[in-house]
């Protein structure tokens, strides 16, 4: 699944005429910093659903995700002037949201332990199509943090490897490695055969 690029007002995302704002994200950032009271509202409108999805999948819990996106958007509102346009605004927002999620998760689970083996679904010979959503969620949650974040951003949210590397502040090769290892671990946990 590839989410639509909501950072582009002219993309085919089904915006209604009443929501059309011709400004691009960079202009909105500049306008917000200049004191335009409408700019952040538009930024929020464009990115909120995607950031919510990232938070839910990163946190694995809607309540925790709600806390995290609140932290993140408030931080973004306060600190938008520190965004220097070296990456897309959506990349910067992903970074802020992911970090907020990690902060929240670490408060709940300070050591973020891996789940014990018996917390994972038993290995079995089922085809991937029979794997339930709960299985996937539990298996994802049991992955090491770096692998889980890479898979959430690359495979679930359709970010490119380069974008994900920018969000997580690591090299592109690291993202590929984390994805490959994470997928292997997921395949093992879910009993997916192949390879």
């Amino acid at each position, binding site marked *: 699944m590839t989410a639509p690029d909501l950072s582009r007002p002219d993309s085919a995302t089904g915006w209604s005429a009443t929501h059309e704002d011709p400004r691009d994200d960079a202009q909105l950032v500049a306008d917000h910093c200049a004191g335009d009271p409408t700019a952040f509202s538009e930024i929020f409108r464009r990115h909120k659903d995607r950031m919510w999805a990232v938070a839910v999948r990163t946190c694995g819990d809607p309540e925790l995700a709600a806390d995290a996106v609140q932290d993140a958007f408030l*931080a973004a509102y*306060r600190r938008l002037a520190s965004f220097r346009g070296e990456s897309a605004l959506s990349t910067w927002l992903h970074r802020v949201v992911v970090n907020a999620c990690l*902060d929240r998760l670490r408060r709940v689970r300070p050591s973020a332990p891996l789940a014990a083996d018996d917390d994972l679904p038993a290995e079995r010979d089922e085809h991937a199509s029979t794997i339930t959503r709960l299985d996937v969620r539990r298996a994802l949650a049991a992955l090491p943090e770096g692998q889980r974040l890479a898979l959430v951003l690359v495979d679930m949210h359709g970010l490119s490897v380069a974008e994900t590397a920018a969000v997580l502040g690591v090299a592109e090769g690291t993202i590929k490695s984390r994805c490959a290892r994470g997928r292997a671990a*997921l395949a093992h946990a879910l009993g997916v055969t192949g390879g």
Partner: protein
Amino acid sequence: MVTNDAGDPAVEFERDPWGIGPLLAAQPDPGPMPERVEERIWDAIGEFDASQDVVDIFGVGARVESDGGLVDELGLKSTEFADDQGQSGSGDGAVTGRHTSRGAGRAHASGPRVVSLRGSTRRSGRADGAAAVFLRRRALAALIAAAAVVLLVLGGSALIRSALGSDSGAASKAVSTLSFTTAEVPLTARLHVEASARNYTHANLATLAQELLEAPGTAYSAAPDSPDALPVTTATGLGGCLFALGEIDADRIAVDLATYDGAPAAIVVVIDGGLKQVYAVQRTCTKGNPHVVDGPLPMT
């Protein structure tokens, strides 16, 4: 048996022999952000804006938190920063924070106040109601702040009068330690300061800053306030520096009195909300001029 011992990561990434990528991509989308979450976010932003407005109303460095508590810039004392309010700092707009009307983060200083207009744009159909809620909150916050300032004046005067009965030094001490009830965590509880032998450079700034967070060293004891002490080595001076950076309210702050490119510097790492970033500043960083050498650089 599948193991984590993949071969070339780039090849394995492209191969995805188990089809996990498509499996994950096919997972149901969590859907749009629930309205209650949107409400929470805008409430938080509204409360933040309201606190900013109160700062401007009184112009004395005080602000009202969401719980009505009145705090000064450090969250510690009543008089620490009363001497030179209004210094503009670098004014380069590179950093903004809760104190956007002063210090380095002046991004909003000349623009319209966001809070009173927010409701007209954030959700059509409920704009008037939302604006009214914010305006009522602003009015309430202003009233609370006014009451608190009156109490401050009366209480401070009483303390001064009481103290003057003995000697003026005691009076000064009584005023300087006057503090307020606040839900905010004091700066001292959010701040770690150490003096390491690290030599930071632009290339290693984020990496070494992460080390500072993950493995903090022995806490540095602040030098006594004196004209000879470099500002960031004193508690008061460091507070002013953080204020100038717009980071005084960050959730966590770590400072390393180390070197940057071989020259004495202070490395300031801040975590606020979901944002983590690092600055290198000269040790002459003051409330009036942060003397930023490098940063802010984002960290993960």
